[in-house]
């Protein structure tokens, strides 16, 4: 209360100074006063009130019709004062929510963390960056007892918190599969049943599962409606789409997934991605898939990890550093 009194005094001085001099300095101090008032959560109607009180103290014989008009002005400002207080309360709430989400995002990162496998046969690179704070993309590496490497990439259609919640469930279901070798089609069929039972029908999940056998150098894979990746043939120095038919997860409980095989020679690459990569936009235009393979080609002398990072940087810049969707890319390259 005492600070408000103090402010009335200083407001009165400022007002007096301005009325007498009409100079810019007084107006500048008025601006300072209003900033200070905002910091102290003083509402517009309180300012009007201070003005009226200051005016009456400076000019006690103000005509009564002017006095009435000032009271009328005060009355109209009361609701603005309320709106301002509501705005402040909502702003605080928003900050609270934001910090909650960032805590959740950290938790999610811990949850979804996966270790990139070290294999002499294979150079592996992976990058996954959420468009907002939380990631609706998921990738996971798992080495089975026979030494094969399983790679899962999934994408919840949508982004933000709902997609991230759904993703956590996918992760737990993946963890519940046994360590023995599982065929990609069997894994997708299992995940399909999980998603069908547990996820709202308005939510779609696409998933790709690949299994690399370091002895035969065969890459077996199945796809549940997932964005096709690329196969790079070192011999022909060319890219092909990794096409695979399959319904998105959670639509039909009894769906079967086809399994495909791609043999990898030394220097060949498999590129897996989510639609956050292919649906990058420059201006009004979606990028062409060729542009992605061109960029990969441009950096193919680098390590798999460096390639993913360079591709990400390229498209991040192309989109003015504002990702529209979660961006995930995995590159596997046969070394020996």
């Amino acid at each position, binding site marked *: *209360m005492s600070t408000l009194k103090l402010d009335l005094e200083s407001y009165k001085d400022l007002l007096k100074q301005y009325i007498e001099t009409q100079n810019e300095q007084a107006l500048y101090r008025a601006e300072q006063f209003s900033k200070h008032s905002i910091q102290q959560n003083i509402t517009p*109607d*309180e300012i009007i*009130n201070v003005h*009226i009180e200051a005016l009456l103290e400076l000019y006690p014989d103000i005509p009564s019709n002017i006095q009435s008009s000032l*009271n009328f002005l*005060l*009355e109209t400002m*009361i*609701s603005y004062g*309320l*709106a301002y*207080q*509501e705005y402040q*309360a*909502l702003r605080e*709430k928003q900050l609270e929510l934001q910090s909650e989400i960032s805590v959740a995002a950290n938790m999610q990162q811990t949850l979804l963390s996966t270790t990139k496998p070290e294999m002499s046969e294979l150079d592996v690179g992976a990058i996954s960056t959420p468009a907002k704070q939380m990631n609706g993309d998921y990738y996971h590496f798992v080495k089975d007892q026979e030494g094969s490497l399983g790679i899962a990439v999934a994408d919840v259609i949508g982004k933000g918190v709902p997609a991230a919640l759904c993703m956590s469930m996918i992760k737990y279901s993946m963890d519940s599969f046994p360590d023995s070798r599982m065929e990609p089609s069997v894994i997708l069929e299992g995940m399909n049943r999980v998603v069908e039972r547990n996820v709202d029908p308005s939510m779609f999940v696409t998933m790709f599962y690949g299994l690399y056998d370091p002895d035969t150098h065969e890459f077996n894979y199945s796809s549940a409606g997932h964005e096709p990746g690329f196969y790079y043939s070192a011999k022909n120095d060319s890219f092909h789409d990794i096409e695979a038919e399959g319904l998105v997860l959670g639509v039909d409980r009894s769906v079967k997934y086809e399994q495909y095989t791609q043999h990898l020679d030394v220097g060949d690459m498999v590129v897996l991605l989510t639609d956050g990569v292919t649906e990058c936009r420059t201006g009004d235009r979606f990028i062409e898939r060729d542009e992605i393979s061109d960029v990969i080609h441009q950096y193919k002398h680098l390590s798999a990890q460096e390639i993913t990072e360079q591709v990400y940087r390229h498209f991040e810049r192309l989109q003015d550093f504002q990702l529209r969707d979660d961006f995930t890319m995995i590159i596997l390259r046969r070394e020996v």
Partner: protein
Amino acid sequence: MDFQSCVNIKKEWDIVGARQLGRDISKKIGFGTVDQARIATAISELARNIYLYAGTGKVCFETIENLNEKGLRIIAIDEGPGIRDVTQVMEDGFSTSGGLGAGLPGVKRLMDEFDVISRQGEGTEVNVVKWLR
């Protein structure tokens, strides 16, 4: 002080009557212009809620006094449908009158004490106090 006076709310015009009586009493108690305006705004909200959602009801005023201070108690009573979820109604941004009214959270901000009792199908009683400081 057990003096209490009420204004019946049946039509929109009664909101003005409630404001007028509330302002007169506030003036008598000694509230300044700003507080008078705030009290009047709170009365508007309470009376408009009755008019819009209950149809009829009343707004009553009572001068109150304890050892240290004087104040005004306003009680808005209706026998309307009641509020289903008071917590939701008290949330900022959940305005029942199309975003234009300050709603009950606004009333709470304008006054010093606030209480609401609502039973579905029986009605609502909002009890607020403004102390003279």
